[in-house]
C-alpha cells in the first residue's frame, strides 16, 4: 500500500503525470460515451440516446430544483459535463489500481485532493463570475449583506467553507473507498485464506463504491447548482 506519486517538473511547474494521465483517460471515456450515444440521433430516441437524454433531463431537474430554467439553462452544459466527468472519474479507480516502481499510476483522479479541490474551486469561482455577470457588481455585493448586514463575515467564511467541503467531500469519499479496496486487495493477494476471506467484503465494497461514486457525482452537481443559485438569484 505504500506508494508515492510520480512527479514531473516542466517549465518550472510540477506535474503529477499519473493525474494527467487519469484526467485524460476520464475525458476520453466521457467524450467517447457522449459522442457515441449522440450519433445517428433520431426524433424517436433509441438505445444510448435515451440514456443521454435521461442524464440531460436529470441534470435539468437538478437545476430546476434550484432556480428557474430561464436563469439556470446556461448551466445545463456545465452540469451534464460535470456529472459525467465526476462519475466516470469516481469509477475509474474501482476495478484496479496500478503501481509502478512504488508509484501510483492508475487511480480515480478524484481520489487526488488537488483535482477534487480544483474542481470545487472552479465551480465556486464560476458561481462568483456568474453572480457578478448576472446581478451586476452592486447586486453581487448585496448578496453578502442579505438577509442581515451583520451576517456578512459569515457569508465570506461560507464561501471558503463551501469550496472546502465541496472538494473534500468528493475527495474523502472516493479516496476512502480506494483505500479500503486496496486493503482488501492486499489481503486477497496475501494468502489463499485471505483471498477467500476478502472476496465477499471486496464485492460488497465495490458495489457500495459504485453507489458512492454515483451519489457523489450527483451531490457535486447538486451543490454546484445550489451555490450557483445563491449567487445568481436574489430571492434567497
Amino acid at each position, binding site marked *: 500500500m505504500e506508494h508515492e506519486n510520480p512527479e*514531473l517538473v516542466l517549465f518550472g511547474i*510540477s*506535474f503529477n503525470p499519473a*493525474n494527467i494521465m487519469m484526467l485524460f483517460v476520464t*475525458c476520453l471515456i466521457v467524450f467517447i460515451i457522449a459522442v457515441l450515444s449522440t450519433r445517428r440521433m433520431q*426524433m424517436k430516441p433509441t438505445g444510448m440516446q435515451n440514456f443521454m437524454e435521461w442524464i440531460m433531463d436529470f441534470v435539468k431537474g437538478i437545476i430546476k430544483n434550484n432556480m428557474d430554467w430561464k436563469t439556470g439553462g446556461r448551466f445545463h452544459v456545465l452540469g451534464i*459535463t460535470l456529472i459525467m*466527468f465526476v462519475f466516470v472519474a469516481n469509477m475509474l479507480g474501482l476495478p484496479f489500481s496500478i503501481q509502478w516502481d512504488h508509484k501510483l499510476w492508475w487511480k480515480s483522479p478524484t481520489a487526488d485532493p488537488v483535482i477534487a479541490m480544483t*474542481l470545487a474551486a472552479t465551480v465556486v469561482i464560476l458561481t462568483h463570475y456568474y453572480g457578478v455577470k448576472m446581478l451586476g457588481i452592486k447586486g453581487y455585493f448585496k448578496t453578502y449583506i442579505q438577509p442581515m448586514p451583520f451576517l456578512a463575515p459569515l457569508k465570506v467564511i461560507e464561501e471558503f467553507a463551501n469550496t472546502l467541503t465541496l472538494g473534500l467531500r468528493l475527495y474523502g469519499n472516493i479516496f476512502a473507498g480506494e483505500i479500503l479496496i486496496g486493503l482488501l486487495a492486499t489481503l486477497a493477494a496475501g494468502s489463499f485464506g485471505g483471498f477467500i476471506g476478502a472476496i465477499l467484503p471486496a464485492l460488497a465494497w465495490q458495489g457500495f463504491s459504485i453507489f458512492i461514486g454515483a451519489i457523489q457525482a450527483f451531490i457535486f452537481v447538486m451543490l454546484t447548482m445550489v451555490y450557483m443559485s445563491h449567487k445568481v438569484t436574489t430571492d434567497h
Partner: protein
Amino acid sequence: MFLDTFVLLSSNADSGFLSSLNQRLNLGDIIATVVFFTLLMLLLKKFAWGPLMGIMDQRAEMIANEIEAAEQSRLDSQKLLEEQRALLKEAHANAQSIVENAKKQGEAQREELIQTTRAEVGRMKDNAALEIATEKEKAIAAVREEFVSLSIMAASKVLGKEVSEEDNRALIEETIVKAGEGR
C-alpha cells in the same frame, strides 16, 4: 495551508514565485484539471450536448405542434359534429312539419270532399223533391182534368142532355177544388 504558502512566499521572494509554490503545491495538476475539464466541456458542447439539446428542443417543439394540431382538429371535429347535429335536428323538424302539413292537408281535403258530397247529395235531394212535387202536381192536374170530363159525362148522362163542357167546366173545377180542400 494558504497562510503557510504566503509566509513561505514572502521569505523566499528571491527564489521566484513558481518554484516556491511548487514545493508546496503541484500547480501543474490544477492547471491540467481546469484545462482538461474546460476542453472536455467545450468539445462535448460542440459534438454531443449541442446536437442532443437541439434534437430535444426540436422534439419538444414537434410535440407542442402536434398537441396544438390535435387540439385544433378536435375543435374542428367538435364544430363539425355540432353542425351535423344541428342539420340533423333541422331535417328532423322539417320532416315533422312536412308530415304535419300532409296530415293537415289530408284532413282539409277530406273535409272538403265530405262537404262537396254532402252539398251534392242535398242538391240531388232537392232536385228529386222538386221533381216529385212537379210530377205530383202534373198528376193531380191530369187526374183533375180526367175527373172533370168524367163528371160532365156522368152529369150529361143523368140529365139526359148535353151539358156543355165549355159552360160548366169552370163550375165543376171550382167544386173539385173545394172538395179537394175539404179533404
